């Protein structure tokens, strides 16, 4: 390359960098707007539901004077617009009030339970994507063959069987009968006192500290629920991969790739899947986000102390601070993942303009 060409290339590079930065800026604006919308909705829900926050704190035997004082202390006598302002200000600081049930700040509760859900959801999505994508590709390439039929049945079961039932069945088989996995919990009780989590992701924490016995124990606890969630993600991901791949394989550029004399392997994995990957990013991200909401049923069956279980417990105890705080956190994660997948989509598909 000549110097002039180098300069042109560098110019194009920096122009692209500017374009990416400006689109990042726009993403941020969208994120903030959506987040404010989320706060407004949760605030509104908090006001209209027939649970009196004062009663929830004091119980129904408190004298009227105390009730009135508490109401003022909680700022409930202020005009609602001011209440909303205070609410947003607190939420932006990560202050969602105190949980009535656990008497901890909601934020510290969430910091404790959310990693459990993230760890489970991440492992589940990984299992779902690593198996689901190749399965979908194979089903599309060998359309109508035995493997396509098997993939279809696997998908159908994944769609239609209730997860708690499959979870109980899995426990009976793999825990009670075969003893391949550990009982429902995150860790054996023995380790509860010898192991101090850092990030809250037990697999990561134990590996970082070199406590391989803890790692193995955590693995034995997480693998069954993760496999189960992974199976449900797999069912969805493999069906979507199949349909995206069929669409790509019917395109003219596949004929051209064959005319170039490329191998089928190269055509399928290098061209068709590379194109199908663009919409797949959204599918996998959405399925990950839906697992991050905390699958209440899975967490209940496997006594998994995650955010789904936390919110459900809070809800049945009318602990509104915890419910709304949890909702806001989940909503924020949802917004973040959506934006991330959008960004990835743009990186993968050169046709979507970055600027």
């Amino acid at each position, binding site marked *: *390359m000549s110097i002039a*060409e180098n300069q*042109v290339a560098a110019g194009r590079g920096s122009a692209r960098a500017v374009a990416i930065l400006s689109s990042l800026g726009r993403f941020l604006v969208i994120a903030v707007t959506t987040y404010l919308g989320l706060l407004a909705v949760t605030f509104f829900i908090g006001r209209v539901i027939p649970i009196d926050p004062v009663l929830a704190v004091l119980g129904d035997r408190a004298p009227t004077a105390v009730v009135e004082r508490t109401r003022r202390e909680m700022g409930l006598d202020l005009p609602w617009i001011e209440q909303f302002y205070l609410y947003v200000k607190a939420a932006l600081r990560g202050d969602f009030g105190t949980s009535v049930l656990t008497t901890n700040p909601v934020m510290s509760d969430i910091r404790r339970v959310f990693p459990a859900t993230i760890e489970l959801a991440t492992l589940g999505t990984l299992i779902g994507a690593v198996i689901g994508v190749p399965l979908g590709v194979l089903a599309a390439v060998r359309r109508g063959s035995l493997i396509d039929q098997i993939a279809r049945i696997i998908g159908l079961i994944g769609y239609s069987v209730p997860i708690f039932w499959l979870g109980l069945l899995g426990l009976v088989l793999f825990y009670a009968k075969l003893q391949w996995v550990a009982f429902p919990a995150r860790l054996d009780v023995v380790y509860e006192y010898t192991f101090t989590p850092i990030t809250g992701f037990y697999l990561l924490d134990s590996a970082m500290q070199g406590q391989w016995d803890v790692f193995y124990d955590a693995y034995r606890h997480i693998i069954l629920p993760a496999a189960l969630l992974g199976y449900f993600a797999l069912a969805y991901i493999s069906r979507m991969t199949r349909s995206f791949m069929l669409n790509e394989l019917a*395109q*003219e*550029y596949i*004929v*051209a*790739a*064959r*005319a*170039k*004399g*490329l*191998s089928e392997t*190269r055509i399928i994995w290098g*061209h068709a899947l*590379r*194109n199908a990957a*663009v919409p797949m990013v959204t599918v996998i991200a959405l399925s990950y986000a839906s697992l991050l909401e905390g699958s209440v049923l899975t967490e209940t069956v496997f006594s998994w102390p995650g955010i789904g279980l936390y919110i459900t417990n809070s809800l049945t105890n009318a602990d509104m601070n915890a419910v709304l705080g949890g909702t806001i956190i989940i909503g924020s994660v949802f917004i973040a993942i959506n934006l991330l997948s959008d960004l990835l989509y743009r990186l*993968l*598909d*050169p*046709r979507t303009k970055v600027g």
Partner: protein
Amino acid sequence: MSDTLLEVDDLRVTFPTRTGLVQAVRGVSFSLGRERLGIVGESGSGKSQTGRAIMGLTPPQAEVSAKKLAFGGIELLSISSRQRRSLRGNRIAMILQDPKYSLDPVMTIGRQIVETLRTHEKVSKADARERALAMLQAVQIRDPARVFDLYPHEVSGGMGQRAMIAMMLITGPELMIADEPTSALDVTVQLDVLKILDKLVAERGMGLIFISHDLRLVSSFCDRVVVMYAGKVVEQIKASELRDAQHPYTRGLLNCMPRIGFERHPLPVLDRKPEWAA
């Protein structure tokens, strides 16, 4: 005849459908030297399927048979699919109709050209890039280094088709099948692309099969013309003698071409007699 590049004798392509077998190509025979052969016909006449059968790109559910389908002395229907693939893109190449759809949208033009080359020849990345740039120059792209890094959607149709030609010619094939290579382009660009194609075919002494529905284009561009109707060859004729065509179908096609200065009302309609297809 040592100069024969391709021999086709009684080529048939049969598709199974819900209502029984359908023969898209029904006993096509012709031979090709280092010349430009045009195949014309209406849509559904089997001209594209003839081209794809020679390439070995017939859909897997369809059946191809022929008394002879020989390329450079190699009987194409009796060699393995692996050997067939090593011919494709290497000694026999194909240009498709619309560069908008026939180039991979998420891969840069340069990488797609290099990919063809490196599939068939052992060349270093740097050499492959050099040759791809030279090829882009050969199809008269002014700024090859820039176009090399562009994605297909970033170039015009004419430039995309030139990139397609570059991608298919880089290995120096002996036979080129061009399936409606200019039908999707603007009229003003069509001639440019044709000129480039013509020049390269002549320079490299390639055989060319030019598949088109445009009789005027084919007759001005090719040496010989094969006219197909309902999966059969109804007439083979030198392009220069097209005006003296005998077959009523060819005459009908010729008759439909408008001429400057002659206004015709109503416009002529093609005759389609079942006995021609028999």
